[in-house]
């Protein structure tokens, strides 16, 4: 048994080593893999369906909620000024939770603690709309998530999850998105998995969706049990992916096939 364990460990280590990281010069946004039509859809605000959520977000930003009777705007003012660059820094370390939280969780923490309202459900129209209006203000801002030294252990955990083979297909994220991003899977580009445009409008979903939704879809795709929304594993994965994409400009709300 002990011998078997040792072999398994060697195989695991070998598996981790084979996943070569993408050199910074070769990093490409998912945008560059898309057809001209889909690019045009993202580029023009009145053709980009993600902007419908931004529009809803503008309404919600000013709407008073909860026992405190406060709107986002009452503390944060004009989102265009106060939220510029914020999405580029998330997931960020939260002192209260003593761990990283993503933008959706930050919005809900504001709702619970400041507005004294109930948290919004993940992937609901309202939470997506608020995330969209905040992320939109960072369009063009380079990603800087993970710069806080307190996040280092969580980035390492996220990287471990990224390399971890799992599910019936026994695949880790790296097996596709580091090793085979220049190839295709059933006709679709595999891409490098840089989360530059979230929340984004996926034509397949016919809706805006979060990075967590995308990660869960990928995990289901390798036939593994997807982590729950808001689970520490998903946030660590988000954090690792954002730190891996550091320096790339935010495109939110992006459009993807």
């Amino acid at each position, binding site marked *: 048994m002990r011998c078997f364990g040792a072999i398994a460990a060697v195989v695991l280590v070998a598996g981790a080593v084979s996943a070569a990281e993408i050199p910074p010069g070769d990093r490409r946004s998912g945008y560059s893999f898309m057809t001209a039509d889909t690019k045009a859809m993202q580029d*023009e605000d*009145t*053709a980009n*369906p993600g*902007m*419908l959520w931004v*529009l*809803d977000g503008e309404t919600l930003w000013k709407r008073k909620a909860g026992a405190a009777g406060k709107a986002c705007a009452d503390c944060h003012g004009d989102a265009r000024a106060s939220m510029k660059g914020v999405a580029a820094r998330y997931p960020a370390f939260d002192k209260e939770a003593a761990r990283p939280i993503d933008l959706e969780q930050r919005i809900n923490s504001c709702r619970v603690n400041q507005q004294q309202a109930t948290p919004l459900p993940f992937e609901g129209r309202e939470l997506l709309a608020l995330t969209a209006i905040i992320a939109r203000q960072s369009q063009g801002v380079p990603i800087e998530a993970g710069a806080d030294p307190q996040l280092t252990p969580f980035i390492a955990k996220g990287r471990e999850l990224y390399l971890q083979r799992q599910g019936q297909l026994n695949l880790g994220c790296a097996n596709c998105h580091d090793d085979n991003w220049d190839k295709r899977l059933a006709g679709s580009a595999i891409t490098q998995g840089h989360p530059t445009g979230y929340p984004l409008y996926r034509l397949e979903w*016919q*809706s805006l969706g979060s990075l967590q939704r995308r990660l869960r879809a990928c995990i289901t795709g390798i036939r593994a049990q997807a982590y729950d929304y808001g689970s520490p594993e998903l946030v660590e994965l988000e954090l690792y992916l954002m730190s891996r994409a550091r320096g790339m400009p935010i495109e939110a709300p992006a459009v993807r096939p």
Partner: protein
Amino acid sequence: MASALINVPPKAKRGDIVEIKTLMSHIMETGYRHTASGEVVPRDIITSFTCRFNGNEIFHADLFPAIAANPFITFFATVTESGKFEFEWVGDNGFSETASASISVE
């Protein structure tokens, strides 16, 4: 929280052909899908789109279940005078939304 995005050029020369783009927020539920327990998800779509210019209908489209969510409808119009485009979307469950945009023609 229905909302529309409209793209009409604010200015044009007399006789110009302008492109008008409209995007309406709607789920466009086909009525052909079932829940996990087998119940049909009732149809909920936009059934008609109309554009009027200074009160006259210039474009009309009927929409059907095969059209994707958040319908993006674009068309061209020749402009001969300044005025207002009025857009109207009508659909199932009493859905009715309007939007407008002005153009000045020199």
